[in-house]
């Protein structure tokens, strides 16, 4: 039983219909007793932050709920109060949100409305309405990892436990991991789908939501396909903001996380700001909090983080890798991509070879032309001309190592299966 002073605003606020189930003050309990697993990875420093921020805070209410698509999980918001700071309520959009994602709220109806937004959660939106965009480099394909997800019989995929080990990231391991991450809807779609292909609600007649079908239906319906010519990607819709969070694999090995989103409400931005200032992160301040909850599990590198790799022109390996990463970050931003031309006069063969790979795989013919203008080796010039003249073709590399049991992994623009190739 809790013994503390009830704030002056308590009775007036809790007497209003706000979608929150307020606890009787006698039942307020320490926040540390209500730490709920999100399923998402997080680094130790953020886990420590979570512990510190929970100290002294009490759970005072729950709700409203968001329902996680396909799983039917009802995930309620949670509200916390620090008796030593009684003029601030803390809103966790889901009870599984770590404390470093809690929103400080003015304890009024308006403050609660600002935190939750209206409606809660936000309605889904087509891509064209997701006007915000950000992309970060998270690592090389052979080095990026996700938690191993145990596969216990009879347990739904979204309730499986995480193992102690990390495993290499590929399509299957990402798919299993995302299913347990509450910040995300559980099913991904591949680059062959431009919009979220999954229905908002599943009815038994048309869409079988049974756990045993979770792995089958997206493949059967072609939603996991990659499209030849597009950067291989797996995309999930996030729970609260309905953002589209993609894991992309550029030029066969550069792994990025890319997000299309609607800017978060102003009340949320102090949370991103604090994360950036306290933990040296570089998230856009208007990036939704459910997105940050997922991204925090990986290194998130923006252009400024890659600048050191280009600082020493004599370290050609670092420069080469840095350029591949920048090309990935700049994909779809031609103004930035044009800056790759600055490197086309560098004489080092390794740097030039990487620029040629970039030019070839992204079909930046202008970059190939810039390389040819400064190429002094006749054989290499002939090779570049041959590449350009015979129309570079899109790469059919199976970057996610997907295996759909004989079903196509990749299709062309007409929808016809494409013979992909892989690591082996």
């Amino acid at each position: 039983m809790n013994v503390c002073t009830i704030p002056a605003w308590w009775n007036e606020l809790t007497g209003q219909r706000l979608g929150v189930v307020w606890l009787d003050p006698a039942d307020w309990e320490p926040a540390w007793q209500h730490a709920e697993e999100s399923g998402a990875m997080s680094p130790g420093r953020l886990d420590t932050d979570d512990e510190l921020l929970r100290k002294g805070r009490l759970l005072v209410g729950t709700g409203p709920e968001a329902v996680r698509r396909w799983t039917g999980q009802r995930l309620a918001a949670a509200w916390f109060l620090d008796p030593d700071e009684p003029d601030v309520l803390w809103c966790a959009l889901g009870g599984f949100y770590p404390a470093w994602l809690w929103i400080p709220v003015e304890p009024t109806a308006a403050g609660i409305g600002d935190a939750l937004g209206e409606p809660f959660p936000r309605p889904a939106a087509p891509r064209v309405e997701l006007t915000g965009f950000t992309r970060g480099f998270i690592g090389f394909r052979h080095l990026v990892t996700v938690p191993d997800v145990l596969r216990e019989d009879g347990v739904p995929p979204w309730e499986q436990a995480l193992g102690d080990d990390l495993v290499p990231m590929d399509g299957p391991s990402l798919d299993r991991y995302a299913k347990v991450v509450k910040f995300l809807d559980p099913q991904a779609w591949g680059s062959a789908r431009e919009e979220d292909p999954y229905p908002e609600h599943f009815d038994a007649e048309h869409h079988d939501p049974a756990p045993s079908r979770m792995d089958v239906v997206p493949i059967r319906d072609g939603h996991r396909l990659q499209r030849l010519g597009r950067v291989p990607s797996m995309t999930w819709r996030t729970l609260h903001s309905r953002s589209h969070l993609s894991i992309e694999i550029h030029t066969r090995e550069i792994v990025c996380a890319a997000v299309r989103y609607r800017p978060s409400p102003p009340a949320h931005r102090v949370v991103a700001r604090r994360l950036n200032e306290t933990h040296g992160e570089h998230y856009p301040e208007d990036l939704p909090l459910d997105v940050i909850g997922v991204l925090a599990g990986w290194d998130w590198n923006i252009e400024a983080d890659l600048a050191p790799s280009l600082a020493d022109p004599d370290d050609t390996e670092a420069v080469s890798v840095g350029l591949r990463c920048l090309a990935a970050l700049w994909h779809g931003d031609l103004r930035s991509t044009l800056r790759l031309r600055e490197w086309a006069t560098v004489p080092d063969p390794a740097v030039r070879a990487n620029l040629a790979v970039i030019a070839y795989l992204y079909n930046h013919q202008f970059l190939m032309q810039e390389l040819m203008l400064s190429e002094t080796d006749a054989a290499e010039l002939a090779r570049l001309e041959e590449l350009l003249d015979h129309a570079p073709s899109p790469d059919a590399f199976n970057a996610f190592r997907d295996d759909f049991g004989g079903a196509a992994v990749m299709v062309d623009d007409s929808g016809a299966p494409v013979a992909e190739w892989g690591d082996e």
Partner: protein
Amino acid sequence: MSGGHEGTVLLADRAERAVLEALAAERGWSRAAISTAGFDEMEQVAWRADGLFVLYSELHPQGHRVVRVTGEHEAMVDEALGVVRSALPTVPVDALLDVLLAVPPADARAAVRALNGLRAADVWNCADGRPRPEDPRYRAAVERSARHPERQVVRALVYMVGDLMTIRPGIAEPLLALRGTGGPAADIIDDFADFCGRRA
């Protein structure tokens, strides 16, 4: 797409897409569609306003960006194009032609970029098969560029002529006239002549 009248502006390298997005929001243009860049797919954003359709496109093979405005009424299209030109740095086609007609010949890099710019400026005319009014400067630019001492300029020229020859009749002739005359780009010109022969 709103039809009738249209115009395209070529953006300068330093033009900020975010400025265009802000301009669109300020003018109440509603975002109608987006396309994300792929090997053969353009990064694009389209806006719709009363009687107008505004399309931002990134032509990543050529390294250029364009904004196209189409609409029912010429005055509205012209006004929208004027607004885009005022808000963003653009490159007039005249400037590209000046590069290619320069005496002495322009630096090879500038010439290649100008040739790619001409391809971009006419991309929608080519897509629509819309013949352009005759402009003798194009033919003159082909004549000059075909004699550029840098082989890569002639290669870029062939790509440009190949794109534009259907909508700008006559621009291939100066290249074809050089067939068999030798020089550092003789093979390129001969290949192009063979290509034209097969098309005819």
